[in-house]
């Protein structure tokens, strides 16, 4: 079997670039198939039987296999094969459909079989294939079902020659596939009424130079003439001017608790946490807000709030690193610098609420003057034997622990939102933002 590896090109800066197309010429090492061995077996048995019994008619059985063996000798097999492939993209989002196309060119090949090995949690299906003389083309659709970094493939090829009596195998390595997490449902970027950062798109409670009407007030020296509200002026026989809401930006910091990953793959707490973070980041960055990220659980990592377009990619890469983080040392939120948690920022804590870390985190945040929102992403209960009374009792105690934790959070004035990955977060976010008032620093 020939092993073909397509190298990824390395740029001058030393970075590995994503290769979406590739081609190679692989030497073929043909070996006899079962069909050849069985034909030889039939012929040998017939000839031996004819010799042993001295009955020539038994040799008749050997004629057809021998004719086939003679008509397709091994020397007609090709020495090499040209293989080219194209992967539509090496970066995609969960449930995107990627096209993988392969072209095989070899003279004297009887049949080509292929298998595109699907990465973990991905689906592969053959879409089309055709043969034009010596050129065989095939196309697959690859649907990655879970975020992460995967090796797409390998693409296994089995080239059968000499009427099925010889076969060679070739493995084609495909580039790494980066699957970004899908975004959780956040329909629109809602914001609290009191905002501090200037130059945004959210109408704040303060008056300023926005476009949203905020009220009228008596005219004062220095007001612009075009702001005079003539209808109110006529009613009160006094000059009144219109006021507009100031437009402010919004700082959102998403805190991910990645210390525990529970639940089935694809819908685990880590999956839902990542999708919630991506949904929030995508929605608020689109509204030109500043979004930051803090991941707790393994190593403490953070990305300061920013609003540039590349911030989404930075957050993508940061949340994807969370799965590989096996550190259990952890870090506390108190070690996060002030620049990452700016004053007035809205903090959304995404956690499965499986230990006291969430409570400590929220307590710390409240002490720093923030009014966080906790998004609970645990959707499954622990698997316990249904017939075991002790296990059922333990499950009840576990439920009570979680309820006690939620009560403690409520005592701190922190709303807890349960999100199963399906619903829209907008309404609850808006409700939480409007209801919460940041406390003074402890």
């Amino acid at each position, binding site marked *: 079997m020939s092993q073909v590896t397509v190298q990824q090109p390395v740029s001058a800066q030393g970075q590995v*670039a994503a290769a979406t*197309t590739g081609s190679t010429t692989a030497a073929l090492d043909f070996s006899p198939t079962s069909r050849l061995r069985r034909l030889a077996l039939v012929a040998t048995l017939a000839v031996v039987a*004819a010799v042993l019994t001295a009955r020539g008619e038994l040799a*008749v059985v050997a004629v057809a296999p021998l004719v086939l063996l003679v008509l397709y000798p091994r020397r007609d097999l090709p020495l090499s094969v040209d293989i080219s492939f194209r992967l539509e993209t090496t970066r995609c989002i969960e449930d995107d459909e990627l096209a993988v196309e392969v072209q095989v060119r070899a003279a004297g090949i009887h049949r080509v079989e292929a298998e595109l090995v699907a990465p973990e949690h991905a689906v592969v299906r053959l879409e089309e294939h055709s043969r034009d003389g010596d050129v065989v083309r095939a196309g697959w659709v690859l649907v990655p079902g879970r975020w992460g970094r995967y090796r797409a493939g390998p693409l296994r090829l089995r080239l059968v020659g000499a009427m*099925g009596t010889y076969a060679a195998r070739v493995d084609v390595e495909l580039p790494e596939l980066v699957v970004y997490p899908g975004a959780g449902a956040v329909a629109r970027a809602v914001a609290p009424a009191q905002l501090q950062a200037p130059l945004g798109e959210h109408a704040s409670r303060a008056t300023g130079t926005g476009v949203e009407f905020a009220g009228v007030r008596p005219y004062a020296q220095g007001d612009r003439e075009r702001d005079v509200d003539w209808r109110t002026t006529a009613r009160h026989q006094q000059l009144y001017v219109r006021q507009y809401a100031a437009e402010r930006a919004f700082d959102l910091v998403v805190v991910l608790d990645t210390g525990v990953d529970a639940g089935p793959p694809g819908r685990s707490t880590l999956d839902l946490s990542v999708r919630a973070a991506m949904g929030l980041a995508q929605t608020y960055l689109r509204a030109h807000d500043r979004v930051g990220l803090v991941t707790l659980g393994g190593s403490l990592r953070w990305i300061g709030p920013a609003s540039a377009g590349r911030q989404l990619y930075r957050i993508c*890469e940061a949340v994807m690193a969370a799965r590989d983080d096996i550190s259990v040392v952890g870090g506390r939120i108190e070690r996060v610098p002030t620049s990452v948690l700016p004053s007035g920022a809205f903090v959304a804590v995404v956690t499965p609420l499986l230990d006291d870390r969430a409570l400590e985190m929220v307590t710390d945040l409240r002490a720093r003057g923030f009014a966080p929102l906790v998004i609970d992403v645990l959707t499954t209960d622990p698997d316990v034997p249904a017939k075991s009374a002790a296990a059922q009792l333990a499950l009840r105690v576990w439920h009570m622990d979680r309820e006690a934790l939620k009560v403690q959070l409520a005592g701190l004035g922190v709303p807890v939102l349960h999100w199963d990955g399906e619903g829209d977060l907008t309404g609850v976010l808006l409700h939480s933002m409007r209801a919460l008032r940041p406390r003074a620093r402890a």
Partner: protein
Amino acid sequence: MTTPSVDQLPAGEPHEPSARVANRLRTRAARIAATLLVGLAACALALTGDPKQPVLLLAGFAAAAVVFAVATGWRMSGSVAVLLVTVTTLGAASIVPRRDRSVETVVACGLLLLLCVGLDSLERGDRGPLRDSIGGPAWGQVLPVYAAALGATAAVAAVAALPGSPSFTLVLVGLAAAVGAMLVATRGHRRPAPSDSPAPRSNRNGPGARKGDDEKSLPDDMSPDGST
């Protein structure tokens, strides 16, 4: 966002269109049925006329071996099935006078060829066929070869059935033909030196963005801007 639950389902199967899955299952079922039919027909052919007890026994074993080989797809069981069917056919031909079984022998020979082809397509394992056949042969190339093989078999059988044809000569000719055929078939080609094959190469298209979006290059400092 609705993300399908992929934990319980094996990769490669769950999201395939049902029509495609049904078509694949139909094809495999047809292959299994055809191979089973061919193998059992070859066994049944040995029982025509007045079969002796050894032939009956062999035919039973052969039929069981065919069923087992088709059911398991194991390589070794397929070879054993071919061996037993061949021995059964030879046993039946060696017991009955030659003129009475010429046609049966030719038909059994054709069935043996089909059995080899059918078992080959049902084989499982590392050396068996892969999942998707993307470039099959043209029937115009396949059929003449098998027709020539069966024609040659029929011609030799007709010669062997002629009254007064020397059996010893046939044996000698068969032996010589077998040795010659094996020599021709096993002549291998010479592999080129490893340096003859060009090095693999790749084309760089740049980092791909999500389908339909403008391509955006990722920043160099992709990692978070701080860690402890």
